[in-house]
């Protein structure tokens, strides 16, 4: 799902009922009920930092947050009024070890503040609770300093994360979220680019044909879905963590939220 900062501001300032925002939030009503029923213990939250925790001094391609908790960052207009994010260090350290042994060289992070990339998806799914009802493993992907990891790399990483989570001893309910996107461009004379055809096709292929979707090169995202549309590679980590065949539980697509097309899809493995 998308993570537009203005969505967070709309919730924080009580504007979700306004005509501009109402259709966007309406698409998450189903999802809020769904997650209330599912009650995941841990969210493995794949997102990107926006030059908040990571400047140009350190640019990890994949960074896993292993700390007990993650403070909410002040990105320049004051920290969002949302609860602190509680980590799941036992599982995070386990995933780290397993995934690195599986050939994905993660950066391990224990001191990190989280920005809207992580908190806006939580807000969309949980609203405004006193405390988040789940633990969160922040998994940051560099999509800002080109090149990000390839779609194929992300997809295979998702599979390694799945193996790691399944080999953890405790019986936990874990969800993997892919966030960012959909089509958008925030920079230069082409700012405001939206490609609804691309986005809808991406969602279709994500459900039924992820292996081929993973082959799409960066240039296709940037040219067709905007320079920041490249964030969509993060969704392939989520998709890699699922079975080849999945059930589409819910889909929502809306244009615009500020500069961006918003997409949201819930997929489940087929239950036995």
């Amino acid at each position, binding site marked *: 799902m998308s993570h537009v*900062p*203005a969505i967070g501001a709309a919730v924080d300032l009580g504007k979700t009922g306004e005509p*501009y925002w109402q259709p966007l939030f309406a698409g998450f009503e189903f999802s809020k009920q769904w997650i209330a029923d599912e009650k995941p213990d841990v969210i493995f939250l794949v997102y990107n930092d*926006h*030059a*908040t925790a990571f*400047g*140009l*001094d350190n640019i990890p391609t994949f960074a896993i947050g292993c700390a007990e908790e993650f403070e909410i*960052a*002040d*990105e*320049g*207009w004051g920290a969002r009024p949302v609860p602190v994010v509680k980590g799941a260090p036992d599982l995070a350290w386990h995933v780290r070890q397993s995934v690195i042994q599986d050939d994905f060289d993660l950066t391990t992070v224990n001191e990190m503040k989280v920005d809207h990339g992580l908190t806006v998806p939580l807000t969309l799914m949980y609203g405004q609770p006193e405390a988040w009802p789940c633990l969160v493993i922040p998994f940051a992907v560099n999509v*800002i*300093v*080109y*090149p990000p990891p390839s779609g194929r790399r992300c997809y295979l990483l998702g599979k390694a994360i799945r193996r790691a989570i399944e080999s953890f001893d405790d019986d936990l309910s874990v969800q993997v979220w892919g966030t960012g996107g959909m*089509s958008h*461009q*925030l*920079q*230069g*004379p*082409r*700012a*405001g*680019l*939206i*490609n*609804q055809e*691309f986005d809808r096709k991406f969602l279709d292929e994500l459900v039924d044909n992820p292996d081929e979707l993973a082959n799409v090169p*960066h*240039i296709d995202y*940037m*040219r*067709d879905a905007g*320079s920041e549309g490249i964030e969509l590679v993060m969704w392939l980590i989520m998709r890699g963590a699922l079975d080849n065949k999945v059930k589409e539980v819910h889909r929502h697509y809306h*244009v*615009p939220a*500020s*500069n961006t*097309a918003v997409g949201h899809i819930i997929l489940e493995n087929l239950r036995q």
Partner: protein
Amino acid sequence: MRDSRMLTRWTKSTDSLQLQEISVALDKPYKDIPGTTVFDSDMARLGYHLNQFCMTLMKAENRDRFLADERAYLDEWPMTGEQMQAVLDRDYNALLKLGANVYYFGKLFFTDKISFQKGASLMAGMSEEEYLAMMVSGGRSPEGNRYIGEKDDG
């Protein structure tokens, strides 16, 4: 060797197959996207100090100190005169060309108390109202906007 990398390839010489190192240019197929600067290694290196300056604006006391005397604050950073002038002028399209990335100079938007949408409209050369109207009606179409020179009026 700039912009190139070595790859090992099988090559056929006389009658036997041999491994040979060959030089291949780094693939940069994104140079012909109109109105877009991809923040690649070249740009990140060019804009290193410019972007790291922007990072400091996440702190309120730094924003205040910057706004009180912008030139003095910028003088603390080893950036070029051109980069400094683009910051002073809030010329965001110039900043992009000089190695700044939008998530970094977005902190200038917050410093100036303008929205990201307003910042985007300025780069697009539109009024905020025009830009908002474009977004509400589905955004800028990719048609005619994929390749430089694709559009006659470009």
